[in-house]
């Protein structure tokens, strides 16, 4: 049992490290995790699921906006800005970077580029979503197994 938890914990650490190495997540996610404490045990899950909800909504909005004949780039830009803010807040770095590219496309009023960027952002979003879900599941498993989630050393 103990060994199982240890294994899970090691797995979690490795997995998290891999996410950081791949640039899917960045330091901001650690910030997020450090906000989670006894008084607020599900903080990360809450924030992340809020992020998921928000992102799905925004991605849908974006797809709809870009589907219009006359694309309202202001609106698109606002959505992308939102998405960028959200993703940067949880440390979903690759989504954030894709959003930056998206915004510059928006500025150029380049519909083609925007569509491409939307694709990219969507891809990155689903990537980070999957990874985060796995990560969170791992954490839950550890918690369920009675273990504690190893905290990143660099977190303040």
């Amino acid at each position, binding site marked *: 049992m103990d060994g199982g938890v240890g294994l899970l914990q090691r797995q979690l650490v490795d997995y998290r490290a891999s996410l950081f190495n791949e640039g899917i997540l960045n330091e901001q996610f650690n*910030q997020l995790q450090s906000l989670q404490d006894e008084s607020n045990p599900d903080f990360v899950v809450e924030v992340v699921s809020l992020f998921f909800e928000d992102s799905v909504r925004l991605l849908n909005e974006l797809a709809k906006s870009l589907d219009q004949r006359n694309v309202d780039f202001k609106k698109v830009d606002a959505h992308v800005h939102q998405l*960028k803010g959200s993703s940067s807040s949880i440390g979903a770095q690759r989504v954030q970077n894709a959003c930056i590219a998206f915004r510059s496309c928006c500025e150029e009023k380049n519909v083609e580029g925007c569509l491409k960027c939307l694709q990219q952002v969507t891809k990155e979003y689903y990537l980070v979503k999957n990874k985060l879900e796995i990560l969170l599941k791992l954490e839950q498993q550890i918690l369920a197994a009675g273990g504690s989630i190893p905290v990143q050393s660099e977190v303040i």
Partner: protein
Amino acid sequence: MVCQMENDKINVDMDMEVLTSMWPEDINEDGSQFNVEKPREDHDMLEEVSILEEPSVVDLQRLMELNSSSEKGSSQLAYLVKHWEYKQANAVRLLREELDSLTEQRQEVELKKLEILEEHRFEEERYDGDKRQVSVLDDLYVMYQAVPRKKDDVPFQSKRFESDAEYDTIVYWKQRALHLEKLLEASLQREQMLMEKLKGSIKNMEMQSTPVEELSQMLKRADNFIHFILQNAPIVLGHVDIIGKTDLEILSGAGMQESLDFKLEVLERGLPGKREITFDTELFGSKTFLIYVEPVFNKAGETIGVNYIGMEITDQVRKREKMAKLREEIAVQKAMETELNKTIHITEETMRSKQMLATMSHEIRSPLSGVVSMAEILATTKLDREQQQLLEVMISSGDLVLQLINDILDLSKVESGVMKLEAIKFRPREVVKHVLQTAAASLRKKLTLEGHVAENVPVEVIGDVLRIRQIITNLVSNAIKFTHEGKVGIKLYVVAQPNIQDRAHKSVEDYSSSVEKGSHIQRFEEAPYQNHKNHDEPRSPLKGKELKLRDEGKPTDHPETAVWIRCDVYDTGIGIPETALPALFKKYMQVSADHARKYGGTGLGLAICKQLVELMGGYLTVSSKEHCGSIFSFVLPYRVSSISDDHSDDTDELPNIIDHDTATADITAGYFCFQPRALGSLFSSGLSSRNQHLAPTNFEYMELPDINGVSPDAYTLSSSASKYKDKASVEIACWVVDPGQASNGSSLKQNANIDDKCTNRGDEGADGDCQAENPSTYSIGKGVDEITKMNKPQEAFQMQKTDSSMRSVPSSNSEVTKSAHKPRILLVEDNKINVMVTKSMMKQLGHIIDVVNNGVEAVRAVQSHSYDLILMDVCMPVMDGLQATRIIRTYEETGNWDSAAEAGIERPMHSLGLELNSQFSMPSLRRIPIIAMTANALSESADECFANGMDSFVSKPVTFQKLRQCLEQYLP
């Protein structure tokens, strides 16, 4: 003998035969011979018969003789018959022969005709075989054929001889002979007839024997016909061999060479082609042909010639050209129409918008001036100090709006040419002084304002003083706006009458002309730094003399003479980049959007100035050097008042300004200087010129000792700062209500500290107009005593935030102290996740925060609560953080929420009530630290945040580190 005779005769006959055989060649001769011969023979026979009847006596011998002779006779008769028969046969033969020859001849003629026809036809084909023409010749042919057919109808006699007389009797023979004679006669007659016919025939033949003429006539006709046809023909067909003749040899005239060239071209290229060629040949007349030329190849594939078809398209070409012309005209017409329409549209649009603007401005102005003038009337009534100050703010704000509206109206007036100029006597020095005074009154920077008026500038001139003042004020306020240190000055001097047309164009249009610019810059350098020193010395007197000379030169019946005065407004400001110069005088234009944001303004000022100056017959120029300064100059003509000496009673348009003690000196003063007040001293923004009217003791005129080489009689309006320098060193400038004068005398003064400090200079401070020196860092401690209950922001204490002792001074302000324990923090952020994260972080840092989602909500929140810190997202829906910050800052500065109302944010009612009833919950006028939260996007640059009044910024995503630093810095 008979035999012999017969023989002879036969011989003759034979001879005759020989002859007849030869006859056809010579019909005439033969015929005559034949005719002559016959009667001779007949005569012989008759004579012989009559001889036979004579003897009536029978004489055997004689009978015998007779018998023998009758025998002879019968034989003779037989012979005769035979002879006749022979002759008959001969005649028939001859006729036959004749017929034959005739037939032959006819055939010959026919052949000839055919030949000719053939020839003709051949020739005809060369021109183009016309069926109609062929049919004409066919008729001719038929005519020829009719001739021989008639001949066939000639009756042929072959009647046998019959007689009722007994055969072989004398009677019989006689009868027979007679009959024969008759026959012969008939035969002769027939012969005759035939001869005649023949002659006629020959004649006919002769007539017809000239078919060449006939044919040539026919050909002529045909030729004419062809000509006619050709001249009207729409088509030309042809073939040209390389070797063969060219059209040129057949036809000549314009176009032939071209067509030949074209044919040769086709020949060379070997490709068919089409071309339109206009010919002007004798044969065709002037015609345009569309010619299609096709090369002809031999079996080896070499071009050996060309076939061409030409189609006459003269009419089409003419029509086409006409059509093209028409179309062109229509297009031109249409273009003109659209152009015109566009122009009309634009003009109408412009007119309408201008009209609307003017109307709107007017509509706004009327009630506003009502408000302002009522307020002014109210100001004259007995009011307590607070009320008066409230009123001042009201009036000054109203004035500001009025000014703006007037600007707009002026512009539209000048543009529409409605603007009327007035001619009022005024004193230029006073104008300069007043403008500078006004500017100094609202000056918030450490700037020296100076004015130089050359000696030769007349004391009084006539012009539209209001407009001139407007121009100078505009230029000066512009200069002040863009100058952060150094000085701003006005220089007035007389110039020679410029060649206005040239100068105006050159200087207004040709901003970048380096010569002009150079000269200006030179002057600029001279002007502020040297000119005020030697202004009165070498140059000015000369000019004065000139002026005098001019004055003297004018006859006395013209009491007013024109004088051109140049006014330079110079500064040591940021300058204007060369690229921005051309757009400088355009409406609503500023050097850049960045400047517009930083310095504000409508961008109307210079446009109005320029238009006004031009309206008054002068010109406005500018020269500038970036980072060194700008110099705006305008030259205007003025009339000089002849009675310039009696100035004392003159309509002084600014009576309040003139200090009574210095009024007389002022008239000829050449130099004014407004030094900035004590270190960092500021003039309240709330003080308008009107304010100074009400409180003329704002400034103290000082006679400066010979500073800067100014003539001793020049005086300066200097601040009274030096008098309370000791206080200024504390770096607190207080703006207080003089308690003694406060009508609300019963009120408690809790902040005695400040009052003590301030009352000292209450008298000198002249109704309190000093403020904290550094507008960006002062914070306003709320005056919590009873007095301040009624006070407007201006009356609130202003103190430096860094001065912690000052913070503690309003010790009775429990809220301040309370909030120091637990600062109220407002988070303005639209992103839920960001809100969640930030909130959570703040919670961990021990702060509970209020959250709103956009700028409007933020403003509302600030309106109803007081916060110690605002974290403001920049990019938000509804209203972004920059605007919200501006509104909050404006409120802090002016104490009213006008800008918020402008942005459509109504004040919540309850907070109004709160403000009036309870100063504790009243929003404070301290400067709330506003921290921007930027996503580091280009549109959210730090500069922009600062420019909009934010104190700092935190880049997103926010982290503990950043938040903590920020809180440490802004929440002491």
